């Protein structure tokens, strides 16, 4: 193997998310909105990236493409070396289940399930044995500091606790990438700080995190900050 090839392999292995000249257009009446205009971006394994910018700059569109929720109009999106921009709905659903964890601004916990059951939900879908589901869900709840709240329903938990359950749920299937869309948006400053701290701990334990936020403190806690404007990355595209 030549030195150049070896370097390339190492690079490919290190890069978890790779976008190349990605465009995303939406029809809006008779016109087209260019939500993303030629975005190229690499996110390495173990990175903690915050995407910031004004409303309508394309942050959420970028997150949707990386999260295999949406498909680009042109360009390529790879996660873990696998093209994800042309996947069918079934392939994309299956890929998200096993490779991507989502944390939303609203927590979207199932109200009739306990915290433990909510965390175990993605594992049940992935076909893990029940005992393994229960054990891992309990471990994750302990990790986010909610071991005493396993049996509680979402309505019995505070906003911060619900978001921690949602984070534990996002980690259930050991995803390669954790995506968060305004995870502190519904929380007060103190509870938001707890979530920021939890994200930092997750990252220091090896999780790759990509977060879209307006929250300066959350963005400031990330290792890398990407600024977007008018569908383009204006700063931070290149890894420092």
């Amino acid at each position, binding site marked *: 193997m030549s030195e150049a090839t070896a370097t390339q392999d190492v690079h490919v292995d290190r890069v978890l998310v790779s976008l190349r000249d990605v465009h995303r257009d939406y029809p809006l009446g008779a016109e087209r909105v260019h939500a993303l205009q030629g975005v190229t971006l690499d996110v390495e394994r173990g990175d903690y990236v915050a995407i910031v910018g004004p409303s309508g700059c394309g942050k959420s569109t970028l997150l*949707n493409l990386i999260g295999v*929720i949406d498909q680009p109009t042109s360009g390529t999106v790879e996660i873990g070396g696998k093209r994800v921009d042309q996947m069918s709905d079934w392939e994309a*659903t299956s890929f998200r*289940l*096993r490779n991507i964890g*989502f944390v*939303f601004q*609203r927590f979207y916990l199932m109200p009739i399930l306990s915290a433990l059951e909510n965390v175990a939900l993605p594992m049940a879908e992935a076909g893990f044995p029940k005992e393994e589901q229960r054990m891992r869900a309990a471990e994750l709840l302990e990790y986010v500091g909610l071991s005493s709240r396993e049996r509680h329903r979402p309505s019995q938990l505070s906003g911060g606790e619900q978001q921690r359950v949602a984070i534990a749920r996002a980690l259930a299937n050991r995803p390669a990438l954790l995506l968060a869309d305004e995870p502190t948006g519904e929380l007060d400053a103190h509870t938001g700080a707890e979530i920021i701290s939890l994200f930092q701990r997750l990252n220091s334990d090896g999780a790759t995190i990509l977060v879209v936020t307006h929250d300066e403190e959350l963005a400031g806690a990330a290792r890398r900050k990407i600024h977007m404007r008018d569908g383009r990355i204006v700063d931070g595209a290149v890894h420092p």
Partner: protein
Amino acid sequence: MQQPSPRTIAIDESLAAQAKLKVGDRVTLLARPAAEDYAVMTATPSGYTPSATPPETVIVAAIVRRGADPSQVARGDLLVRMHLDQLQEISGYGDRVDRFAIATKPGLRIGQLLDHINDVAFGFRAYRSHDIAVETSRTFQVVSRFHRAIGVITIVASSVFLLCIMVLKVEERRRDIAALRLMGISRSSIVKSIIVEAALVAVLGSILGVALGWAASLFVNWHYQGLYRTPLEFSIVTPEIVAVAVSLSLFLGAAAGVLASLRLVRTPPLVLLGR
């Protein structure tokens, strides 16, 4: 010379209640068929003396409950059972009758017997009791069909209502469903969970409905049996009805769940989230 003891009659519950009679009371039987205030019986003592028939004092020996005959429920007739000679005398018809019933021994060829009677008896017609029962119960068959039609309309209306409720309930959870889809939960898993939930709600609802129907049935029977003084059951809840109700409810609930959930899982999650 010893006075002969009065003869006995039996009256039905309605008459007993209306005339405030009880077993052992003495009453006078009389008849005045031509008069407007036609009366067969009056409580003793009575100042009325019929011209045609001498009054006869009898004792109420029994108060009987009427049979469960729907044709008698709304008539309001008051029944007196008396000895045949008393009836002949008081009615003034003697041994003339409009109709009479014959009990036959098992195994007899009824059809042949009827044909024979109808051939030889001029101006006279014999029927099977079954045929008469069918003929007289036609009104009730119509009522029964009417009830069935109301039932079908109720079921159709309930089904539409159930579907609307399910669609609304599932619609309320569109963001939850979108989040589940984003997490990687498959469409089939979501549809299955909604169907199971809808079916459970439907079955629980039907059990509650059956319990309510059973209680309402008890009340209806208690009220109308008292009102008409009849053992007739006006409302019945049979195991078959319960089985049909629960099965139908289960089917409709599951169908409503399928329709409601398919509508949502076919919508892209981002659209469900309003993005």
